[in-house]
């Protein structure tokens, strides 16, 4: 785990705020990296201004399923792959928008892309990335940021 910095704190707060507001669950931050086993739903989102960042969320399919059932309650008829990627993508979109609002103090303009499915196994380079691990109901997930803002913050 990297030394604490404002980006990390902003990301941590954004994850709490987003998951609590959207899925009414309180994630617990983990002190270090853990393996995220089994099938996962992975989504990326680019920030293109004022920094170039690649952000990602990697969540076990089982946890995505739990959160979708919480959100949709009686309306969760069929949980398709499309709905899983849509929901996890909206989590990431909201987390990164919230975090960027905080790190730019709501003043500097920032631009983001649209969430995209991330295929294949993703390896993080510790020196280029900020990865925070959380868990809900003993199921870990992570949110990662790679790019120049992270380098600037170190």
């Amino acid at each position, binding site marked *: 785990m990297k030394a604490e910095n404002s980006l990390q704190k902003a990301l941590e707060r954004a994850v709490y705020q987003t998951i609590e507001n959207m899925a009414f669950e309180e994630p617990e931050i983990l002190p270090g990296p853990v393996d995220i086993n089994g099938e996962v739903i992975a989504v990326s989102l680019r920030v293109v201004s004022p920094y170039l960042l690649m952000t990602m969320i990697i969540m076990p399919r089982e946890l995505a399923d739990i959160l*979708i059932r919480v959100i*949709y309650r009686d309306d969760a008829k069929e949980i398709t792959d499309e709905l899983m990627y849509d929901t996890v*993508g909206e989590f990431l979109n909201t987390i990164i*928008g919230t975090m960027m609002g905080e790190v730019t103090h709501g003043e500097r303009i*920032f631009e*983001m892309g649209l969430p995209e499915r991330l295929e294949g196994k993703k390896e993080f380079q510790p020196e280029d990335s900020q990865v925070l691990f959380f868990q809900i109901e003993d199921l870990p997930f992570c949110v990662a940021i790679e790019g120049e803002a992270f380098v600037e913050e170190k």
Partner: protein
Amino acid sequence: MSMKIIIADDSRTARFLIKQYLEMAGFYKTDFIEVENGREALDYLKENAVDIVITDYKMPKMDGLDLLRRVKASPKLHDLPVLVITSFANQAKIDELLENGAFAVLQKPLSLAKLHETVKPFIASEEYRE
């Protein structure tokens, strides 16, 4: 008389949450129309009357700002209230949306209290209560 609200967002879950929050805020006698982008919203609005437009900012094909500009430029649609709900939380963007005629800009994740405060005037309207 029921109200009609169109919700434009490329995320199905975001649309669902907005709809749920609006129902919790008091819009229980409301018909919700869901579309995935500004283009679909505009196509719908050309043929159908609604009471409120709620739109995301960042969407494929046509974004929320473009939709807002087109609504406000249309003699038929320009009085329609447009609420923008976005994860882009910087003041310059918010100012741009307000200058282009949005009646409010709310930030994701949506807060029920803020949404309620923003849409309260519509719920309180005589027409809606009848």
